[in-house]
């Protein structure tokens, strides 16, 4: 790993990450270029990862990291600025109240234990009944869900909530520890699979992310499960238009 010195371009990049939290690879490349231009440092477009490694080498002792991961929605790579510790101090975070955090955890429970990686808004509203901290009113819950989407912890589509890319990447260690029995990995990319297709063969039942399905079966006439070789009965999604991370 490169142990370059931090310069203002790195600091500018880190500050931008603090502000936005999550960025896709293409956006990160643009940001990288702009930060270098602004501080008149040499910009090597193909050195984004080593640029980030330099920042990470300084962040690591501070319980922070810019972590790379894949989006379940579009299969693209994303970078997320994450916290890596849980201490008395990190629990002083004031973005959400205790009962709001409880509801967020319940929402995660619902999503992770569901078949399709989703939870409907009504299911979430209903689980306020079982809250142990101060109960949220329905309208407060709705506002909270909006805020969670706005802060990029959840994604919403027609009343159905899923874990956002930011959430999956930052919460990875937590999900691994808390839900190890329930969570399956994608057979192709070996990341958590929440929104995915499942092999119909009950003896097999592997999961594959939709974008991974698209990539894996692209151009194959008769799709077969990569594990059990049974026919893959699901609709094969379009290959995500032109991996934005690859070029440009």
């Amino acid at each position, binding site marked *: 790993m490169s142990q370059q010195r*931090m310069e*203002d371009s790195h600091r*500018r*990049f880190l*500050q931008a990450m603090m502000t*936005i939290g999550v960025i896709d690879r293409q956006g990160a490349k643009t940001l990288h270029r*702009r930060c270098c*231009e602004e501080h008149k440092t040499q910009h090597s477009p193909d050195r984004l990862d080593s640029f980030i490694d330099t920042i990470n080498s*300084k962040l690591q002792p*501070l319980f922070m990291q810019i972590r790379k991961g894949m989006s379940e929605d579009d299969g693209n790579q994303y970078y997320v600025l994450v916290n890596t510790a849980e201490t008395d101090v990190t629990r002083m975070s004031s973005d959400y109240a205790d009962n709001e955090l409880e509801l967020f955890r319940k929402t995660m429970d619902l999503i992770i234990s569901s078949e399709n990686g989703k939870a409907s808004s009504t299911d979430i509203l209903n689980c306020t009944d079982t809250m142990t901290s101060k109960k949220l009113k329905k309208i407060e819950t709705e506002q909270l869900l909006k805020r969670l989407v706005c802060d990029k912890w959840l994604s919403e589509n027609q009343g159905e909530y899923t874990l956002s890319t930011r959430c999956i990447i930052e919460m990875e260690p937590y999900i691994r520890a808390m839900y190890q029995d329930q969570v399956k990995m994608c057979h192709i990319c070996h990341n958590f699979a929440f929104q995915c297709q499942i092999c119909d063969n009950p003896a097999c039942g592997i999961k594959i992310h939709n974008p991974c399905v698209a990539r894996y079966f692209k151009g194959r006439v008769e799709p077969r499960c990569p594990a059990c070789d049974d026919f893959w009965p699901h609709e094969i999604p379009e290959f995500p238009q032109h991996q934005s991370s690859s070029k440009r």
Partner: protein
Amino acid sequence: MAQRKRLSGAQTSSQAKRPSGSQAAPEDEDDQTFTLPSSSQVLRGMESLAPGQLEQKTAEVVQYFLVKDQKKFAIRRADIVKHVLKEQRNIYPEVMRRAAATFQQVFGLKLVEIEQKNHLYILINSLEPSAAAPPSSSTNPKTGLLFVVLGLIFMKGGVARENVVWSTLKKLRIDPREKHEEFGDVRKLLTEEFVRQRYLEYIRIPHTDPVEFEFGWGQRAEYEVSKPRILSFMGELHQQDPQTWSQQYREAHSSSSSTPSPSPSQR
């Protein structure tokens, strides 16, 4: 008083046990349990540390600042000691020095003590503001509101009476009696949140009957907000050369406004 001052380093038992959230607590009192240790105490403290512990405490202090800065309230020394340093309070000066260096080196941020009486700290940016880097969609609309109020105060010579502020905001479709769709309860925002964040001071005008208030710049604004830039944006808005406001121009360019004199009162 003199006796209490001696309660430095070693005696931890006397530390106030107060729930972390209580902000109404008298600030001084808490702080009296802690006075800056002498350099020999610091040295002794450092020697007794296990290797790596200084770095560990520094990282924790950095983390504490980042967490507490989420709300942009000023951070009290007494709280840093209470929540992070605890028994190692005697290495406080060294830890703070290192934390400040870390903020500068890694984040491009500056740790500033805005009030010496209560030992309050804030973080400000040491990089120049830039339109390029962070996507503009993520700007906080409250910055616009702050500009209007701080700008008005500055142009009015350092204080603006409350009714002037409200009547100006009213023209901008903000009515303190109604919930604003962007800012919610604006009266609360101005007189409580911005005050706690130390962007604004909200001061009772003496000898007024009925009671009246005025707004001034808070300590955070003095460090975080650039008067020359405020004035030049004013010029842009009015399509007027900023120098034509000669008093304000002198004020903005005389006090090197990024480092104001740390006098607790401006008035």
